[in-house]
């Protein structure tokens, strides 16, 4: 499974990197790297069965704490 993930992310880089570097749009490259790193990190964590905290459960608990739920 981990091999598949790494292959998929490598393929993504291959497809996108040439056009990104050609355009020299640094803001775009920065955002790209942010999403790339985040998804790579989380997918590897999931592959290793590490429990990742979920943002929506966090918001869910927040709303329950302020009694804003049915």
């Amino acid at each position, binding site marked *: 499974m981990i091999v598949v993930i790494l292959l998929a992310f490598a*393929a993504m880089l*291959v*497809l996108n990197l*040439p056009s990104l570097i050609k355009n020299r749009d640094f803001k775009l490259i920065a955002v790209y790297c942010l999403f790339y790193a985040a998804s790579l990190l989380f997918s590897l964590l999931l592959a290793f069965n590490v429990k990742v905290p979920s943002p929506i459960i966090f918001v869910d608990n927040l709303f329950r704490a302020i009694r804003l739920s049915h």
Partner: protein
Amino acid sequence: MKTGLRPAAAAAATALLLLISSGCYDIVELDTISIVTGVGIDRDEKPGLIRLTVQVGKAETVGGGGETGKEISEKAYLVLDATDRSIVGALDSLRQDNSRTLFLHHNQLIIFGESHAKDGIADDIDALMRYHQSHMNVYMLVAEGNAREVLDTEMELEKIPSVGIDRMIKNKMEISKVYSVSLLELVSKLIDKSSAAAVPIIKSIKEKDLSRLSMQGLAVFKNGRMVGKLSENQTNGYAWMLGEIKSGSLKVNTGKDSAELNISACESKVKAVFDKNGMPKIQVDINGRFIVEQLIGFEGQPLEEVIGLLNKVAADTVKQVVLSCFKQTQRLNADIFGFGFHIHKYHSRKWKALEGRWEQIYPSLELALNIQTEILDTGKISISPKTA
């Protein structure tokens, strides 16, 4: 066509995608499954265990039968069983001992053995509703004796018994819809705390060397347990009360003469009336229409008189049959007609006061029957040749 790494990578990715999206994980080939056509659940000798019987249809022997002169001596079906604490456990052990996986999507029947039905079927219903492969329109039956016997009975005209039983049920449905109870109907009645369900009984009769199947009567389930039976006559009463008779015949007796009437249509209307204490009284209006099939006796009487007499006697007979069924359900304290449910639906505010006490109210519930009969036709002849 541009050359380079990018198109190559895109092509490779597309090829990989095509491979994955063919869904090869979930392939099911016809020769790797055994098609289950009937399921039976019995109480095992050891306490706390049930015996699950499945009837599997063999696809090969049913298909090509056009060869003359060759005797097909092998049965077109197979009966497997397993013992376990629950249905799911038994299905699991059947899977382990079998060269093929069980395929329950085409299952048509679920038969409960009588003793197991008396123990309670609520847990089995839970498993059946959760199990993905079970459909809610399978027919439910109770076997007098063992379900395994019923599933193992070879039928003369049908290769696979479950298909035969299914056709039997459909035949009986021509008379009345009460002879078929699907899993959905059973669950619907089980969920409602005031109602009881009535499930058809099937039994395997052995006469000399042959055995055949026969469906007679209904088994009454209350709170998931079988509490009693209704005879064939009382089943008729049940059908009349619900207005669910489409055909069939009625025997009437005037003391010295009798007649056979064919039931051509029937309607019933249920109304709940409340007295000043809030206690309910059920009023049922039944309307039956008949065609005379046979007159036995009635010599020398003019036709109008005979018809009038038959009307009255038919109404009395229907009333008697309905009351006999009603009294039996009152004895068993099982509201199979859904009177409680009716009050809940149409008078929901009054029902809230009665809900907790329905068990006490039902055995002494007053029933007012109003039966109208009409003889529409007398068949191909009107005056009997006997009166000449």
